[in-house]
């Protein structure tokens, strides 16, 4: 099961006005020997509420350093804190590297890679391109990098340096949404039409072995559609998505009521797929079994408290969870329970599978 380890912050560097690159070093344990394109999940307590946030590693595998890029998100508690307060000498907690946004590398391979990055989506793509160019001396990499304007390009100088270091093997195309460029093609958004135009004159799409895409949802859809249209299949297209909806904003949870527990039955209300259903259930029955008995197609798999498929949130009342091998403390604090292990304690219980 996921475990957190301590990482010492050895450097915090601004790359643009609202993004920092944080260098980290494991304090005592944990295997942080990452693969290019992977991410770290951090946790931190903000006013009594634990927040978790995932950030991609931006360092190359051969650089011998662990670094993540953190772009400030409007209203994002963790990213604001990292950009304003985090400093060298601090300690962060993170899980070991995770993710499968990579393909295996071979020194003898001569492949052509194509990367698309939108804004801070550059972080894993940067790790991939640095690692690939170092590990496969005969391969080439083309990066299409979308940003709002020149000022918001993360790692701009570093990319220039890499272009000089890997002359002829690294091509970078900057596409800017609002700043006009010499070539019209490089202005605007990277969507299916833009890809089509790029594939006509600038990128030999037929020669591409693998494409990596990391950016906002609409951009990923447009690029993927265009790549498929130009003959790439699903095995050749690798995605990484950190949606803007990633839970990162602080929210106070509704307090559970303290009804006195006397009756043997409970008035239960269960919400699933937007529909709330109410029924009376026995207190010696699990919330999951009662829901299933009442013809609600509640999710479950192991019924043994180990898999967490049956997770739901208690909005009102209280339940007793007799076993829990899957939810972590912070989830329980937020009101999540394993419904296969939860028995009502109060006379009224409201649970929601949609949250």
């Amino acid at each position: 099961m996921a475990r957190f380890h301590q990482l010492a912050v050895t450097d915090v560097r601004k790359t643009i006005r609202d993004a920092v690159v944080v260098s980290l070093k494991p304090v005592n344990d944990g295997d942080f020997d990452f693969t290019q394109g992977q991410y770290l999940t951090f946790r931190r307590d903000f006013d009594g509420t634990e927040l978790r946030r995932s950030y991609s590693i931006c360092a190359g595998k051969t650089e011998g350093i662990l670094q993540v890029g953190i772009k400030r998100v409007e209203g994002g508690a963790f990213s604001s804190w990292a950009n304003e307060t985090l400093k060298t000498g601090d300690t962060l907690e993170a899980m070991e590297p995770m993710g499968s946004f990579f393909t295996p590398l071979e020194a003898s391979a001569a492949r052509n890679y194509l990367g698309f990055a939108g804004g801070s989506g550059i972080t894993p793509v940067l790790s991939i391109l640095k690692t690939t160019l170092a590990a496969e001396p005969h391969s080439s990499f083309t990066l299409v990098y979308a940003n709002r304007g020149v000022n918001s390009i993360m790692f701009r100088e570093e990319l220039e340096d890499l272009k000089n270091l890997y002359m002829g093997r690294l091509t970078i195309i900057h596409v800017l949404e609002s700043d006009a460029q010499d070539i019209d093609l490089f202005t605007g958004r990277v969507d299916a039409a833009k890809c089509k135009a790029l594939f006509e004159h600038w990128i030999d799409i037929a020669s591409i072995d693998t494409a990596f895409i990391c950016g906002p949802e609409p951009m990923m859809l447009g690029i993927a559609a265009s790549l498929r249209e130009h003959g790439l299949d699903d095995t050749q297209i690798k995605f990484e998505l950190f949606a803007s909806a990633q839970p990162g904003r602080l929210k106070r949870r509704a307090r559970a009521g303290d009804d006195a527990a006397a009756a043997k039955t409970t008035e239960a209300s269960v919400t699933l797929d937007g529909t709330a259903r109410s029924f009376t259930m026995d207190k010696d029955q699990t919330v999951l079994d009662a829901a299933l008995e009442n013809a609600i197609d509640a999710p479950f798999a192991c019924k043994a408290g180990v898999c967490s498929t049956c997770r739901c949130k208690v909005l009102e009342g209280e339940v007793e969870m007799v076993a829990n091998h899957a939810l972590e403390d912070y989830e329980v604090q937020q009101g999540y329970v394993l419904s296969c292990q939860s028995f009502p304690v109060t006379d009224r219980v409201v649970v929601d599978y949609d949250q």
Partner: protein
Amino acid sequence: MTEDMSIESYLSQGGKLTNPTNVPPRYRAELMKMMATFVDSELAGAAGFADVINAGPGIKERIAAAKIVLEKTDNADRVLRLLGEFGADTARYATSHPWTARLPRDAGPGTHRSEHDMRLSVLNYPLSGWTDAVVMNLCMGLAVGAQLAEMQKVSYQPLAEAIRKVAPVEARHVELAEEGLARLMEQGQSDAIAAALAYWRPRVAAIFGDVAGHRFEQLSAWGLRHQNNAALLQGWNDALNAALARLGVAA
């Protein structure tokens, strides 16, 4: 680059999700059910086949059976690791159910699942000897092939990738079954094969039970399903009939 798009709308347009951090709760639950069904079926299948190793009539057959047990367990592990990324306790999961438990042999075909795990219903029936096991492996292997082809298109990219690694291994198990059946046919076992086929065919067919229309719609809007069960069932019937024809077994 901060245009807003809901995850639902992204998924309905064929978008892929790539890690547990941003899957919506209901998507998470359905995805985990799907993964648990796969893991439980592989573990139950491997457990059932383990007992058959010693029934193999020769060393080649025993090697084939042992290989199937090993590789199905390995395939379960691949997907169980993904469940672990969602918080499942993988060590406890692997031993949380009696994977060898079966219904009585004469239990009628049906889609009823065991109360205790998510294995496909067919894996609740016991094998009865070598020929029976080989026939079951062919019928079920082809059904697994149809389901894995579907799962390779799933919108959760890490699962699609895991299944792409698993699918050729499972396809090889079907080849082993076909080779085994060819040998049994040479040995004049066609009556025993026909009896086993009559037992297993309806039980395997039952795993393609109906998914209610609205549920399938929801699952396909999330990119978790693409072809409906009727189409998968048809594909499986065709593949099985073709294999039986190659072997000279009456369908």
